[in-house]
């Protein structure tokens, strides 16, 4: 029979109760679990519910291909811990597996609000958790520790991204950890125990599950270009897998930190980050941190451009050597093509975008873009009408451009929409572009470019549908 046992949490030390033999078998828990929970959740949690037995699909998938073949006896069942906040809200759960010490935390869904120290912009999905006959929903990103035997950091990074897509979109499957291990193409011998994955192997696994991945990186002289491109895909709501050669480590990147708009008041800094011939500043230059799911650390760790002993993790963004981006089939035009075309457009295209402008480049679906346009009360009715009724490809690249003051207010006064299925040699991939006085768009049925001039387009709110803006919980209210 499934049992549910509660323990009250009054302070960090309360988590020590989990180590009592009457609560959880010592095969399933160790002091690292207790330390992690005490350190990161602390007294924001009022109660932990212990569910036993729990048959975890991911643990069973590696049990049958690996642990069942070992001489030592490994149980099939797990424990699952559920966390309830002081406000009585369900905050998430974690699975405890009977494996090596220090790696017992399995599949975990936990609300990021509990763990963030500042505002963040993250990718999240909604996960159903059934507990004691009830269904709870958790907005989270999947996380677990590697078991070090059959899976490594790269396997976990791939698993977390595939689990996110499989849960959120019906046309993607939800492979277990064991299925991912079995799908690794290994030319140099056996798959278990694993010695890690290369970027190419990661890309191959993603391909097997319906993605059209790209690999970027491998040149330290172009680290800043790599980070610019990484930010564009993060801004598109696409979780990516990053690999760090100096630390021999991989993790998934799921969002970014605060946008430092006050940097724009520092002329010396602005001069260094501005694109020389067009006065453009990429929005990504104003962001100093990303958020990652690192199997060595608790979920939602912040990775800064410049780190020190106080940082969440022992590596900086600049140490990222490669990224593998899981694109869809219809996302054919790549970031650097979009950027280069846009620079050409700014120089020679005739749009009146004047002065220093901040530019944000991202992918989105045309449906979501039209929904956004429809909801914009401040958008010019002419522009709104065109966007809503324009024939577009399923996915489009968008480039939002604002002057400094508009950007600080979260507004946009120029936009370019590009067909994401356009080829790299396609000279005219534009679907729409506008400045404050003119709109140009491509009518696919007539195969002509149309222009509407002498209109007044006031700045309107920026598009913000790809990432969830997550505010920090008021910790005093939580207590």
């Amino acid at each position, binding site marked *: 029979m499934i049992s549910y046992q509660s323990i009250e949490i009054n302070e960090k030390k309360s988590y020590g109760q989990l180590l009592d033999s009457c609560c959880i078998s010592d095969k399933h828990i160790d002091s690292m679990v207790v330390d992690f929970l005490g350190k990161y959740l602390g007294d924001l949690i009022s109660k932990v519910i212990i569910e036993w037995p729990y048959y975890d699909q991911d643990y069973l998938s590696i049990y049958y291909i690996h642990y069942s073949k070992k001489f030592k006896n490994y149980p099939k069942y797990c424990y699952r811990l559920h966390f309830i906040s002081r406000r009585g809200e369900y905050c998430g759960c974690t699975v405890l597996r009977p494996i090596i010490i220090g790696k017992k935390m399995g599949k975990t869904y936990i609300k990021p609000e509990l763990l963030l120290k500042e505002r963040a912009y993250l990718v999240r999905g909604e996960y159903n958790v059934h507990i004691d006959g009830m269904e709870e929903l958790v907005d989270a990103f999947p996380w677990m520790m590697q078991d070090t035997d059959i899976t490594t950091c790269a396997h976990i990074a791939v698993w977390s991204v595939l689990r996110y897509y499989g849960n959120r979109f019906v046309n993607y499957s939800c492979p277990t950890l064991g299925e991912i291990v079995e799908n690794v193409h290994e030319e140099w011998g056996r798959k278990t125990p694993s010695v890690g994955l290369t970027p190419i192997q990661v890309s191959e696994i993603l391909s097997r599950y319906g993605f059209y991945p790209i690999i970027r990186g491998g040149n*330290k*002289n172009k*680290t*800043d270009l790599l980070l610019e491109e990484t930010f564009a895909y993060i801004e598109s709501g696409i979780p990516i897998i990053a690999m*760090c*050669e*100096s*630390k021999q480590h991989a993790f998934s990147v799921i969002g970014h930190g605060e946008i*430092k708009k*006050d*940097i724009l008041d*520092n002329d*010396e*800094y602005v*001069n*260094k*980050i*501005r694109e*020389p*011939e067009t006065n453009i500043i990429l929005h990504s230059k104003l962001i*100093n941190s990303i958020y990652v799911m690192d199997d060595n650390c608790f979920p939602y760790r912040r990775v800064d*451009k*410049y*780190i*020190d*002993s106080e*940082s969440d993790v*022992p*590596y*900086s963004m*600049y*140490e990222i050597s490669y990224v593998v981006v899981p694109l869809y089939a219809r996302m054919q035009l790549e970031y650097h093509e979009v950027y280069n075309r846009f620079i050409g457009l700014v120089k020679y295209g005739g749009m009146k975008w004047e002065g220093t402008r901040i530019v944000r480049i991202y992918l989105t679906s045309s449906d979501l873009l039209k929904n956004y346009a429809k909801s914009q009360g401040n958008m010019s009715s002419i522009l709104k009408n065109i966007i809503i009724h324009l024939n577009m490809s399923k996915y489009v690249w968008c480039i939002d451009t604002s002057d400094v003051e508009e950007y600080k207010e979260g507004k946009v006064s120029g936009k370019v929409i590009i067909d994401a299925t356009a080829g790299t040699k396609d000279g005219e991939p534009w679907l729409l572009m506008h400045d404050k006085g003119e709109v140009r768009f491509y009518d696919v049925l007539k195969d002509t470019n149309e222009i509407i001039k002498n209109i007044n387009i006031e700045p309107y709110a920026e598009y913000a549908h790809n990432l969830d803006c997550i505010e920090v919980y008021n910790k005093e209210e939580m207590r």
Partner: protein
Amino acid sequence: MINGNEMIAEDYDRLSDYLLTCIGHEKADEVTIKSLIGSCAEFDGAGISKSSMVFPNPVNPKESVSLKFSNVKFSLRLAFDIILLNPVKPPSDKNEMLMFMIRVLKLAFGEMVKILDEDMANVLQAIYMLSYDNHGATMEKIIEYCRKYNMQAESMERVIYNLENIKCIELVEGEYKLAETVILNLKNVDIKRGI
């Protein structure tokens, strides 16, 4: 791995430990240093040394110095981006990191730069901050920038001459720019702390 007069580093941790042992880091954060090395160092053809080059010895002009390069490339411009292009960290932290990097260059180029120290840091910082929009920094602008460090024009010219010799900066159409990468020669010599 140490082979004769050459230090051939093959992994980031060992390189970091070697540099921290030889140089010391006083107030700079060790985690920051290791991250900087992890971001900017690259091992090109591990175990294979590059060909030697000959430089005039600035201390004794009648002599020349023959240096055999090891296989560590260091992205100098990226290092400056990481250290200086950060609006959050206080100037004192940035200065500590800048001085650590200067000491790495001094370790790598030995006698070539033993007469240089803070002057080298000031001039490199000036060139980095004055370079933007595809332009480098003219000598006049560098002199004006470095006046706040009380540097004399003559010493600045000497510093620039030596920085060009060790390929940290280059002159392009009358303007100085920071080199993208430098090759570090990490020789197995009797290095004392706090060079």
